[in-house]
């Protein structure tokens, strides 16, 4: 089997791409082997914190009961209020439970595999997104590999907020780009499905803000397409179908939201009500730190997260994609001529601004500019979106490199 490194994406999907994905999964499982296979390590901090939710859910489902109520905590409370936090009711988790009836793993192992598989599944969307953006297949592989083994994965071992906020963003972005190329039912269903699944993510504000920024940047270089959607009757119908799908998927989140006034938030022990916990009120929450961006080129810093070491403060949102990928991304920032380059540059700048508490500078305007962030607390949660945007440039940088190689070859 000849391996052509200059194989282009437009020549079609090859079987070897699936082999590559399976190989990447295999390597990923080796990385998480001590957790999933050999039981030597466990997740920590918040990730293991959600084990309690999962245990109750898994245990109940294994006994054939979908648990709507939890008798143990706070003298009984609706369990479904907490379902969205760990994304425990998503299909991958449910399918895993059915698989566990055969393998009969411990619930802790089941949870470990659940987290690991979710990381891979969410990252797989990045591969297909890269496929839509890059010229060469090898660039997709590099971009995807960089994302999968970036700090996003490892920080998700300790802080699942990053994982569950990012969730299906890669897949949604993939279908959105495909929609841009061809506005048909297939792509609309795909985009709506993954956007709808995002609605029940941990804090939907981050992913929706990401898409809001991206769509807003399209006004700069792709105004015609964006505004043309509303001028074509067929496209409007497809848009309505998409919105219906999103609505159907969001209803269960709406059910919880409608009952929010019956509950009292105990996060941070009742100091904050829901609104005060919002980012703009300044109480609570964890922003990123400017020193986080230093981690992109200085990897030993990644082990100092969450520790105030004056004058450094490293947040939980570790940023590392590899030195060489970062150099590739810088090359692409300068030399790439891709039509989406300006969109992602603006995306990166906006994400840096938001993650460093920049909204407080906007005053009353911020609620209008970033409506989805009204109840968002931890601006460091933009970490996976920043890495995702950076891996776009990694793919573009790899395209430049391969283009350069090809020129010399010919």
């Amino acid at each position, binding site marked *: 089997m000849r391996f052509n490194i200059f194989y282009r994406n437009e020549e079609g999907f090859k079987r070897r791409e699936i082999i590559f994905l399976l190989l990447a999964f295999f390597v990923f499982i080796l990385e998480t082997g001590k957790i999933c296979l050999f039981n030597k390590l466990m997740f920590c901090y918040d990730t293991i914190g959600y084990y309690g*939710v999962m245990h109750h859910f898994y245990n109940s489902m294994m006994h054939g009961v979908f648990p709507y*109520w939890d008798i143990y905590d706070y003298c009984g409370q609706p369990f479904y209020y907490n379902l969205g936090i760990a994304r425990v009711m998503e299909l991958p988790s449910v399918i895993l439970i059915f698989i566990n009836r055969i393998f009969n793993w411990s619930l802790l192992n089941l949870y470990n595999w659940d987290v690991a598989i979710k990381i891979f599944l969410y990252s797989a969307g990045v591969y297909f997104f890269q496929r839509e953006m890059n010229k060469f297949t090898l660039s997709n592989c590099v971009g995807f590999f960089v994302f999968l083994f970036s700090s996003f994965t490892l920080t998700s071992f300790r802080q699942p907020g990053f994982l569950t906020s990012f969730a299906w963003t890669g897949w949604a972005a993939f279908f959105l780009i495909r929609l841009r190329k061809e506005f048909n039912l297939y792509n609309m269903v795909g985009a709506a499905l993954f956007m709808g699944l995002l609605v029940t993510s941990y804090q939907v504000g981050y992913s929706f803000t990401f898409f809001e920024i991206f769509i807003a940047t399209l006004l700069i270089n792709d105004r015609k397409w964006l505004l043309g959607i509303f001028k074509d009757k067929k496209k409007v119908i497809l848009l309505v179908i998409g919105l219906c799908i999103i609505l159907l998927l969001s209803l269960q989140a709406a059910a919880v939201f409608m009952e929010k006034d019956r509950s009292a938030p105990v996060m941070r022990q009742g100091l904050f009500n829901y609104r005060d916990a919002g980012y703009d009120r300044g109480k609570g929450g964890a922003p990123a730190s400017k020193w986080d961006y230093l981690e992109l080129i200085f990897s030993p810093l990644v082990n100092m997260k969450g520790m105030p070491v004056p004058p450094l403060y490293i947040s939980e949102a570790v940023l590392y994609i590899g030195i060489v990928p970062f150099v590739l991304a810088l090359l692409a920032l300068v030399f790439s001529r891709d039509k989406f380059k300006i969109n992602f540059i603006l995306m990166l700048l906006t994400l840096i601004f938001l993650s460093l508490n920049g909204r407080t500078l906007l005053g009353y305007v911020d609620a209008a500019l970033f409506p989805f962030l009204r109840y968002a607390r931890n601006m460091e949660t933009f970490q996976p979106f920043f890495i995702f945007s950076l891996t776009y440039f990694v793919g573009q940088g790899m395209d430049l490199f391969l283009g350069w190689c090809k020129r010399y070859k010919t």
Partner: protein
Amino acid sequence: MPNEDVYFYVFIYASCLSILLAALFMIIRYLIKRGRPFAACITLIGVIFADLIFYSYLALPNETLPRKNVKFAEWGHEFSFPKSRSHTPPLDKRFRYFVAPIKNIFIAFDIVSLDKYCPILWKGYRYMDVGSMLESIKSSSFPLQKEIMSMNMTDFISMGRNRYNQWNGYKKEAYLNFLELTLEDMQFERPFYIMFIDGQKYLDLIMGGVNNGYLSLRANRPWAEKDETVATFMKLIQMEDLKMLPDTASTFLIDGKPNPDSPVFGVIKYHDTLYKQTSCFNFFLILWVKYKLHAVHTFVCLKDYEEIMNVYERFSNNMFSDPASKRIEDDLGVNSALIKFSSRVRLGDKGGYVADLTKGGAMNYDIYIEKGPGATLDYIGTSPSNFSYEVKNYNPNKLEIKYKADVPGYLYYADCYDKYWHASIDKKDMLIYRANGAFKAVKVPAGQHQVEFIYDPVFFRIALWLYYLTTIGCVVFLTVGAIHELPLLKVFKTR
């Protein structure tokens, strides 16, 4: 400011990185110019791969924990109805649902971090969680047994300051362990916020233990400097101002009020009276009960329950003699059964139960039923009755019990009220009343009958079905649509 060593290491790192990148660039350029782009690609990808794998190797120990010292429930269990709130759920008591309580996470986390970061763990003394410490105290095996039984918290802390260096390792660890459990955890009810550090020396001391500004007594430094820790706690008790740690992304309060303009932090006193008037052991017990009831690290609890907890906090200064606290604990089923029966009932407005509790907790009824549609007092009695029950079936959404009572009355279930709970007696639907502020009660006749409670959040259930059907439908459509026109391999062409 970082010291000179840091700048030196940064310089070495930057130099090595530049040299390696330059070497990589030259190798790749050489390979390409020699007409070997494949080799150049492999080199580049190999370096990327090695970089990321090396990073994973570096970062994995910091993003995970060894499992060797951690015990928590790994397997499922049959559903079993709790005998009381104190009754351990069918999980290991150290690890309950929802990271509850936060102490357990510290045990899961801290035992390991102690092994890793703090080699000064004296042989034989293991840091304890709240439950283990309570057992240790009750069995009189705690190293500072006499002190915590006889002293209040203020005296205990200052005593420790004076005697710390004279103690052996056991007592030192026990002292700090006790303080840490009672003072440190910010998610332990009304938190004792300690958000400031006094001086660079102290900062160095607790550097390893500070997370988001919350102080931990556990430090990865020699214990000799623990005097500073104790001194700081003394200042906290006395409300002395301490300097703010720069660059800490923390909030701060002074006497419970936000004061963003103040350059110093203050401290919220948990209960001034508790520190001075109650023994350490009583204080500890109060926290132990509260953490069972309220200090659970989920994101929400029901408002009605929160109201009762507010009253409980106010009155639990002395849990051994306070009737309001005892009444709440009884109604919650802390040490008593969750299912009770009584005909000593009062019908009143919403909030009446809490109001009665606030007056001091001396109530002449067992169950307070809130007025509402269908709420009547058909069964009122003053004399106790013979009542027994048996749980026939239990799962998270359902409870079936068979009871026997010689008089009609009210069956009280110490589980929070929710509008989606339905009850039936012998398959006949019955109204559920909101009882004792936040819980459930149904009117039951005398004799032997079967009561069933079922939880059915209709809207959520229907929405969940729609969610699964829509997801499956879309996935099937995307998969079939990808296969239908062309073989699978062509699915990713623009369709």
